């Protein structure tokens, strides 16, 4: 069955989601978190590949894609609020065994979610448990995403292009670059503020579910030691599966959906 979309109210925010209408598995359903500033479409390839095997649901965070913003036209800008919203979405959707997968800021967020909410498993892609880059000169770059004299879309083109892996198919690269063209400065600033002011290492020991850590190795902006910040602290996880993927980059969900879908299946087998 094809991907279908709909709206659901989450904490009063009209939230857009998409599902592959796949079968509900005893292993659980995948709930997917997009990268900073983007939307559910990043998961279409994976949703289609798994449509006969698992229910896969993706949704647009507030102020992203087709979801409404928070009151006052704001985006979420604290990671505690991000996690709470994801869990509220899962509850509103009635998902009983969520396996939460995220890429980039979503790849960071899955750790905080698993520390605080009863998920069945997590997949962190291009993520870390600790990035502390705000309150440095880097903060200026984030602030300028929502400056009236800077085009968020144009000023981030080269950055996004630099993150794409060598083996990414051209049509996927085109769509990744189209994603930059559609970004909203408010949403992007909120996400990058979270991504770069993040440290959940102290409570990684609370995570007991199976964890898969995926890293497209061509992603210079998420070096391997970022992933290690999490893996070193996952001492109580049922299993930690480390899967570096050569040739692909930051947007691995779009660059290599076949590989990621097969890894999702591998993680589900551990649940």
């Amino acid at each position, binding site marked *: 069955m094809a991907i279908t979309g709909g709206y659901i109210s989450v904490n009063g925010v009209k939230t857009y989601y998409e599902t592959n209408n796949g079968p509900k598995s005893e292993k659980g359903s995948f709930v997917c978190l997009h990268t900073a500033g983007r939307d559910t479409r990043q998961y279409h390839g994976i949703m289609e590949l798994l449509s006969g095997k698992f229910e896969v649901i993706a949704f647009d965070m507030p102020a992203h894609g087709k979801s409404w913003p928070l009151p006052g036209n704001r985006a979420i800008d604290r990671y505690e609020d991000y996690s709470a919203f994801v869990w509220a979405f899962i509850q509103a959707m009635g998902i009983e065994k969520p396996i939460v997968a995220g890429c980039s800021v979503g790849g960071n967020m899955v750790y905080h979610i698993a520390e605080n909410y009863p998920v069945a498993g997590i997949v962190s892609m291009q993520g870390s448990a600790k*990035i502390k*880059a705000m309150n*440095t*000169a*880097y903060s*200026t*770059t984030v602030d*300028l995403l929502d*400056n009236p*004299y*800077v*085009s968020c879309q*144009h*000023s*981030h*083109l*080269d*950055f996004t292009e*630099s993150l794409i892996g060598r083996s990414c198919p051209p049509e996927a690269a085109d769509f990744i670059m189209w994603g930059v063209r559609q970004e909203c400065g408010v949403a992007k600033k909120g996400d990058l503020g979270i991504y*770069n002011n993040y440290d959940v290492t102290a409570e990684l020991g609370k995570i007991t579910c199976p964890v898969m850590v995926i890293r497209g190795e061509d992603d*210079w*902006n998420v*070096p391997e030691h970022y992933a290690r910040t999490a893996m070193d602290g996952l001492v109580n996880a049922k299993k930690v599966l480390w899967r570096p993927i050569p040739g692909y980059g930051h947007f691995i969900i779009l660059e290599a959906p076949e590989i990621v879908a097969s890894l999702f299946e591998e993680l589900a087998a551990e649940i």
Partner: protein
Amino acid sequence: MTDLERLEKFKEVQRRVNGPEAELFRERYDGRFFTGDMTFIFDGVPYSLYLYKGAVIDVYMGKPASGCYVGIKGSSEQWEDFFRHRNFQLATSIKHNPLCFENLGSALANRQNNTVVAQMMRIIARVMQDG
């Protein structure tokens, strides 16, 4: 490479930007919006390009009389590192590169022109290293 030999390389950069690289530079990397100076400093020696809507009008040694609008300053070691990986974002990353280049001009101007400066830097790398 002497300072004057490097100036000749910048003149080749001008030819490339106005010739075989023009469409990519102006259309994909937004050079068509850029009018003003770009300055690149190698070990204290500045080279400046003046562009009008993405075409290089002038090349000279020295800083613009009006001050640096945008550009990059680095040592030979930093430039050699950039020529090796040619990743402008890594070369200017405060997060990841302890030897990152210094941006010239205001933070606002650099952010506005991030993409076009990055493409200019890649063309410079090709001219300097690949001939």
